[in-house]
């Protein structure tokens, strides 16, 4: 029998057992951790992809956005034999930074399939960091039923006449409102911004809410720049001249920003200048706000009874326009998959992997989460959010302007737009300063020689 040296008492068998029993949970955890790195068993080629001649690793990165991580996981299920596919979700900013660094490098990118949204697609394709996909799209047009994706969506994937993205989901902004409060006060949904302003008056006078409206006039994720772009586009303005010169300080643009400032001062909570989308959603879920313009893919959370006090009480409409007959003051974003030009892996194989993950069958499954790019499987009939989103798109919602230097304008619009909302500058002063800084940056960055 062993002796415990410290106490001098006989050590019991249970003591010995306790010494290694604590390792059991660790062993279980380790086995669980390893489950993800076990190779797909030979003979289970779930996607029917050709097995590469040499061991090939494919890394896919996506950020949190309804549907896209699901498609990424579906791609990872295509691992087979020598083909190893791994999908990793990153925070949005981390994805942008890591992809920027790896794609701008002269060596091979560690990432092979990258989740991008329309702005990134334009910027990265413009810098020739992405591989064009035209030939592969033509080749696999029938096999992957790519004809089911509308031409208008394919157009948004084009930069300088070439297609750089495989469109997966669409995300327009829509108008969200509390049906119960509107019905109680005898109000109807707005068609334009003037209607929204009148609704504010009505809701404030009936003390339904001090700040009835939530708009993403926020610095977070550059939202205010998108909202300015939407308002300006709806009023018929443009951000840039043909030579890249700023047009976001012209009379139409000043009017657009002034309209935003008026709406903000009248009915939007002051903290909205730093709201995240979650802040806006929680405010609506908890009844602080009555209406707002939000990304359609976030709206199902409003009807989630586990998170929302008012599930089932929300109505959804297309985003209102700035004037009668104008385009909606709402953004239309597309999320897609792109292949880095320096991926260093067979481009055709990467394309096939991306297409397997974004197949019509997988899109049908994801259509309960998001508006997928194939209308045939989009479940529009079932969902009130999707209907409002599709209507926003059909009425002319657009994305941010598609010039490679647009990010420079976005930065200054965010900076000075917030100053205008906070009353530090007038709308005209803010846009004049923004235009001056933007034009200087255009020269510094060699966009203007």
């Amino acid at each position, binding site marked *: 029998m062993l002796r415990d040296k410290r106490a001098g008492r006989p050590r019991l068998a249970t003591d010995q057992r306790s010494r290694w029993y604590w390792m059991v949970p660790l062993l279980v955890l380790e086995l669980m951790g390893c489950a993800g790195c076990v190779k797909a068993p030979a003979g289970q080629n779930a996607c029917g992809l050709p097995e590469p001649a040499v061991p090939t690793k494919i890394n896919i990165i996506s950020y949190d956005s309804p549907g896209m991580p699901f498609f990424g996981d579906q791609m990872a299920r295509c691992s087979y034999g020598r083909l190893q596919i791994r999908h990793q979700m990153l925070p949005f900013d981390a994805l942008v930074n890591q992809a920027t*660094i790896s794609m701008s490098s002269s060596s091979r990118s560690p990432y092979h399939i990258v989740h991008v949204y329309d702005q990134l697609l334009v910027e990265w394709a413009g810098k020739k960091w992405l591989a064009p996909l035209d030939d592969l799209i033509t080749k696999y047009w029938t096999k992957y039923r790519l004809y089911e994706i509308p031409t208008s969506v394919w157009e948004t994937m084009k930069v300088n006449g070439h297609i750089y993205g495989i469109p997966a989901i669409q995300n327009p902004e829509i108008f969200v409102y509390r049906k119960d409060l509107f019905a109680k006060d005898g109000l109807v949904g707005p068609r334009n911004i003037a209607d929204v302003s009148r609704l504010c008056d009505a809701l404030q006078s009936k003390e339904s809410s001090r700040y009835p409206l939530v708009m993403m006039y926020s610095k977070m994720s550059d939202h205010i720049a998108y909202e300015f772009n939407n308002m300006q586009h709806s009023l018929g303005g443009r951000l840039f001249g043909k030579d890249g010169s700023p047009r976001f300080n012209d009379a139409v643009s000043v009017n657009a920003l002034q309209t935003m400032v008026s709406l903000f001062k009248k009915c939007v909570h*002051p903290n909205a*200048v730093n709201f995240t989308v979650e*802040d806006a959603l929680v405010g609506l879920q*908890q009844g*602080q706000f009555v209406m707002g313009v939000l990304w359609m893919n976030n709206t199902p959370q409003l009807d989630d009874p586990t998170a929302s006090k008012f599930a089932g009480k929300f109505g959804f409409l297309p985003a209102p326009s700035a004037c009668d007959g104008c385009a909606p003051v709402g953004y239309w974003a597309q999320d897609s998959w792109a292949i880095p030009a320096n991926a260093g892996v067979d481009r055709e194989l990467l394309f096939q992997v991306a297409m397997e993950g974004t197949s019509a069958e997988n899109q049908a499954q994801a259509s309960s989460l998001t508006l997928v790019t194939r209308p045939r499987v989009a479940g529009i009939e079932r969902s009130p959010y999707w209907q409002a989103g599709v209507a926003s798109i059909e009425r002319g919602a657009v994305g941010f302007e598609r010039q490679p230097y647009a990010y420079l304008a976005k930065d200054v619009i965010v900076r000075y737009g917030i100053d205008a909302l*906070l009353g530090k500058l007038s709308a005209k002063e803010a846009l004049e300063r923004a235009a001056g800084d933007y034009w200087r940056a255009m020269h*510094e*960055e060699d966009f203007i020689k």
Partner: protein
Amino acid sequence: MTRKEFAAFIAPCVVLTATLLVAPVIYTVYLSFHHLSFGGHPQFVGWTNYQVLLGDDQVRGALIFTLAFVLLSLPVHTILGLALALMLERVGDRLRGLLISAYAMPFIVTPVVGTLVFSWLFKDFWGIVPYLLDKVNVHILWFAQPWAAQTMVILWGIWWTFGFNVMVLYAGLQTLPDDHVRAAVVDGASYWQRLRYIILPHLMPFVLLISLFNVIDGFRVFDSIWVMTKGGPGTATESIGYLTYRVSFVLRQLGKGSALAVLSIVGTFLLISPLLVARFRGQERD
């Protein structure tokens, strides 16, 4: 040990330090004299980046906020740390263990998670701070008013740092020789006199050390701002660290971003140099 043997022993360390610390700094200085975007080639521009930055309102604003962050939070979390360290000496063992764990929490928790939870305290509709202030009829827009957002970030700085200060100062108190204190008690010194003439002088090197760390950390502050305010409202809470990130990775101006990084290194060095001199003199005296 011969010179050759000595060199062989320290060579790996020297190579590693040079590769991981010195080389990036030299490359940053090199880039600061160039114009460079991701995917491009560096073009020499001389002092242009520095000239542009030194005349830029954004840089001036970020510098003022960073200095305010460092200089306003430093005395508060140092005094708070000292008070709590002294208190720890006077409580029972069990409670001391509990308190030490609690004080350590802010810097044990992942910074992003800690900051997120901290910022929730100030959120309008569910935060405890606006709720309590509301009870006494004080309404502060923590995320919309520049001074309020700046205060919130400074409060975060205090919350994040004071625990570390408590640990260091409490450790310092453990090294205080008992006989000095006993002699003072025999001589009839009151608690305040012991604090003034024995404890504080003994803790001075520790205070210098934590001040040094706090100034350096203060100049690097980034993640809390990133999570809480993204530099907003407007640019009210943009620190030098955050601005460096924005210039480098949002505006993709790597040369300018490098120049800003070099300026912040110089600024940090200027700020800590009196502390370094004091520490060096103290060591010489010892």
